[in-house]
């Protein structure tokens, strides 16, 4: 019944639409939310959207995971390992930046009691 979903074109469309709607959510949050934690969440959502887009689009349904074992020795039928490696790296980096940002925000809040980015104006310019 849902056979048509297996077509590459359809998968591509679904992945793109899904990832981009996630991206939209993140971008909307980034552009409108003021609370610092919400901004961080928005950034995280945008990053995830890109991860999903990448993994979803570079994944070929007809191929298998790139792990060689007794049953799978044919490299031609394996999926591209690079996107996975890249996203692994990117996730860790994103996480690290987020953790650092949150620690900045905590310390800033302790000093000034402010949580909204539009009220961060300690500098008199």
């Amino acid at each position: 019944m849902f056979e048509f979903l297996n077509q590459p074109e359809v998968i591509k469309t679904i992945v793109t639409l899904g990832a981009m709607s996630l991206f939209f959510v993140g971008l909307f949050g980034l552009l409108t939310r003021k609370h610092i934690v919400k901004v961080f969440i928005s950034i995280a959502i945008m990053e995830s959207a890109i991860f999903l887009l990448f993994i979803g689009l570079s994944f070929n349904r007809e191929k298998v995971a790139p792990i060689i074992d007794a049953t799978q020795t044919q490299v031609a039928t394996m999926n591209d390992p690079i996107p996975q490696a890249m996203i692994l790296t990117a996730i860790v980096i994103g996480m690290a930046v987020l953790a650092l940002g949150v620690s900045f925000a905590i310390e800033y809040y302790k000093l000034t009691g402010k949580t909204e980015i539009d009220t961060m104006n300690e500098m008199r310019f």
Partner: protein
Amino acid sequence: MNIKRDIPTATLSGFALSAVLVLTLITILLQYLPLSQQRVGDALLVLNEKEGVANVVTTVVVYFRGFDTLGEIAVLFIASLGVGLMLQPNTECRLKAESNFMLQTASTLLFPLILLFGIYVMVYGHLSPGGGFQGGVIIASGVLLLLISHKNFEVPHTVIVAFETVAGVSYVLIGFMGLLLLDTFLGNFIPHDIANMGMLLSGGVIPLIYIIVGIKVGSEMSGIVQNLMQRSDDV
């Protein structure tokens, strides 16, 4: 039902901007994205045979794109340093209440299992899905479990620092060994016979590096989690 509310202009404009951008992106992506493509990854799949590692993703992460991973470790290292700098351990900001006995016992029992699982994932990173990052994060989650269940639990700072220092230094040193022996940084200088593929001791330097990565990620994540935990009360 009156759902009409005052929506700030900033929200509206933000909505409009993000909607327009995303719609444009979708149009371009849907129109032009290629379905299949000759990629560099396919070449790497072929090359992987030489290294005798079953999990090709591991080869790519640790070996073919080893410098990315080194950089990523550096990012994590700096971030944990930064978090440590910002939220310096303060013993007064701890959990206020002691958690109940069942939680304490269960987590004490679970922790060795989690540790073991983490180490397994780490050590078998070149054979099965998983690896240093995943294993390290699993270990850190075990530490987190202990942190939220035990009021006075603390991984000594010096232990964390020792682990991450030793791991970081040995990563770069292994890279230099490769440079000396094989004339390429991070070269696979330990014998790696293809016949051994699938065995625990295979792949030469790759599993070694992934274990180092695991130790480093585990200690750094534990450090970050611990630092954030210890500050979390007074916010």
